[in-house]
């Protein structure tokens, strides 16, 4: 443990610090943009990003992942801020943190296995669309200057890296900000600037207990927001952790990450920051910049605070167009463009799960609803497909006037009707044998279907006997698993 902790912090010092600097420069515009989404002063997002990045660097479960104020969580706060104000947001942030810590202790990260690739793609695409949509207010009812500036900004972001030598040295989103600010300042163009959006930090953050009445009414106001924030925060954080795991071919501690996100949010709320979570785009930028360790996240957080506190005067004259350009870049980078091409090649079930996830998110502005929808639809498809794994063969023996049904496969809620349909209730025979030893009854609906069949056949006057019911109903137990029963594996896999 100690060995790996040392490795996490000091295994990659030079690259971590450089990557942390790149990330900090990109975090500033994002934190401001997400504050604007949530409807709070830029300083709320900036303090949050500082607190979350620094705390998660220490207590997080995934080294090299960047957490800060995010769009996913900011989108959930809009109505809370509008109806009740900042103080309620702060206390909701703290409560979300507490809920995340509880989720960590309850091992809820294990439920991530229910999130299929299609749901994850849908999540990211929806997030990208929402980030883009959040920029639209800055692009409507404005003069042509704003469009020109935004286009210039995007041009710089994507083309500056191709400039020989310096292109690889300076982060292009920063160059965009500097150049657009200079243009606006020098030519005295009248466009909206960050300073118009609210207060920027002018001091270091201080510890403050949110100023709200501590009673049941407050709880009932904030709880729905806190639970949404907690869920969405964990979803994006764990998904991002998976992405970083994959990119770096290393493992992360998901349980620790859940608890870490909680601690980070509590810390953020206590210094006047909004809730956040892991940021998929920034984490990828970090890895691309060579960041692998905890030091890069720590550097990003500390540098961000230093930058904004000491440069708040300069920041306030940065045109919003520069920020919009950065956010459009984030949106483009978050969207999975391959998924559009894959709509044609992937199975319809996969595509519809992805599209449904996107639609529900864009409709509700809540990523959690989209994910639940995706999981639900995906599960229905799965149940539909599994119900095809059922076959009943039958044989008739004339001497004894016996009809034998051999049931093979999975009997559960979705296949029970098909199961019943295999039996010929009109056939008049003396004896009927139902052999279920190669079948699995997964739920009480399946068992009820068998009961129904037996009763119906008995009514017709046949002697009904069932073979192998004990084996077939083992699967009824919630804890049923085949991993330690080689025979069961054979039975489930080999015969269908």
């Amino acid at each position, binding site marked *: 443990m100690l060995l790996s902790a040392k490795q996490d912090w000091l295994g990659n010092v030079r690259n971590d610090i450089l990557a942390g600097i790149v990330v900090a420069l990109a975090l500033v515009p994002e934190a401001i943009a997400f504050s604007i989404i949530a409807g709070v002063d830029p300083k709320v997002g900036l303090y949050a990003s500082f607190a979350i990045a620094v705390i998660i660097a220490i207590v997080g479960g995934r080294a090299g992942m960047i957490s800060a104020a995010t769009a996913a969580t900011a989108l959930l706060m809009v109505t809370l801020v509008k109806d009740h104000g900042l103080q309620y947001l702060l206390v909701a942030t703290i409560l979300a943190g507490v809920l995340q810590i509880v989720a960590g202790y309850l091992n809820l990260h294990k439920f991530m296995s229910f999130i299929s690739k299609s749901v994850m793609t849908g999540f990211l695409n929806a997030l990208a669309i929402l980030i883009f949509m959040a920029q639209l207010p800055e692009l409507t009812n404005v003069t042509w200057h704003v469009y020109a500036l935004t286009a210039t900004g995007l041009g710089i972001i994507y083309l500056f*890296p191709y400039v020989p030598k310096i292109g*690889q040295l300076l*982060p*292009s989103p920063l160059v965009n900000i500097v150049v657009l600010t200079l243009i606006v300042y020098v030519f005295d163009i009248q466009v909206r600037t960050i300073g118009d959006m609210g207060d920027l930090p002018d001091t270091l953050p201080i510890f403050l207990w949110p100023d709200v009445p501590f009673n049941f009414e407050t709880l009932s106001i904030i709880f729905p927001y806190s639970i949404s924030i907690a869920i969405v925060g964990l979803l994006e954080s764990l998904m991002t952790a998976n992405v970083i795991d994959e990119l770096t071919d290393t493992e992360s501690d998901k349980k620790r990450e859940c608890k870490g996100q909680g601690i980070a949010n509590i810390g953020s709320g206590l210094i006047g920051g909004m809730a956040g979570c892991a940021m998929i785009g920034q984490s*990828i930028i970090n890895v691309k910049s060579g960041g692998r360790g905890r030091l890069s996240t720590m550097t990003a957080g500390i540098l961000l605070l230093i930058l904004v506190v000491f440069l708040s005067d300069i920041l306030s004259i940065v045109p919003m167009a520069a920020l919009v350009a950065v956010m459009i870049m984030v949106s483009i980078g978050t*969207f999975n*463009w*391959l998924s559009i091409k894959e709509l044609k090649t992937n199975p319809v079930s996969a595509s519809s799960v992805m599209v449904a996830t996107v639609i529900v998110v864009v409709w509700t502005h809540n990523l959690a609803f989209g994910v639940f929808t995706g999981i639900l639809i995906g599960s229905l498809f799965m149940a539909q497909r599994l119900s095809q794994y059922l076959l009943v063969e039958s044989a008739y023996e004339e001497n004894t006037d016996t009809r034998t049904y051999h049931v093979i496969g999975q009997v559960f809620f979705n296949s029970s009707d098909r199961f019943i349909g295999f039996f010929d209730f009109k056939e008049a025979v003396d004896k009927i044998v139902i052999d279920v030893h190669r079948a699995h009854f997964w739920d009480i609906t399946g068992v009820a279907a068998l009961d129904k069949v037996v009763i119906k056949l008995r009514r017709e006057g046949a002697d009904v006997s069932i073979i192998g019911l004990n084996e077939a109903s083992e699967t009824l137990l919630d804890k049923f698993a085949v991993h330690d029963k080689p025979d069961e594996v054979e039975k489930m896999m080999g015969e269908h």
Partner: protein
Amino acid sequence: MSMTKNGFILAGVDGSELGDAVIDYAIWLSKKGPAPLNLLHTIEHSHHSEQVHHEGNLTPNIKEHLLDELSDEERMESKQLIAEGKHILNQAKQKAEDAGVVDLIAKQRHGTLPEALIDLQSELAMVVIGSKGQDHSGEAKGLGTQLEAAIRVVSKPIFIVKYGFTEPKKLMFAYNGSPTSLKALNLLKREALFHDGLEVHVVSVSKNLREAENLVEDAKATLKEANIDVIGQALTGDSLSFLTQYQQDNAIDITMMGAFSHGKLHGFIFGSFTTQMLLESKTQFLLVR
């Protein structure tokens, strides 16, 4: 019943200066067992990306591109490491074959040795490793950083090679009556591998001579049940200095003892006795967990 019936002897092979001795002892143990021998080389990845981009922007499908780029880069390095390891491993394998080991497997695994030991735990009967790996070659004293980690994760006996190979003749068993040393005593009694053809010395050091004598008598009696005759010695005073002195005076080849009977915290604060013994002893080591 032999413990080696249900598992193999695993030898951690690397290119360090003790590498040859590790293989020699593993061969010696494997033939003595007899037990199958598994030569294992671990490929440790400490990849540092060379291709670092500081342009800081997010381009379309950046994740996919980055994944391709990073995996290409690491693939080259891994291939190189595997090839180097294979060379070391083949030499070790040749040596074991020449020495007449029949039941022999030579394999490579990704990750550190302790990680590999966790994964292979259930299949192995015994582990042979060097006290210092490649990273510490040339250091006069000291133990490899991975050694203690390896000792902590393995619940099977561990043979720690500190010096070059000499045919072992004398084994000293340090017995203090603790649960792990009792386990070691039973192992010594049960396994011919650990006493056959060796002169066994049972040494107990305690603050009180009577107590030490009792321990030695108990151990002697236990071993007698399996017709193992041993030389007993009871001592009082500082365990560390007396045990190391005894090793020198009697030209002991292998020291056998129960390992890390205290919790990790204890070892962290007081410096574990096992670690001190490992550092100070001028013999090979057989640790029982």
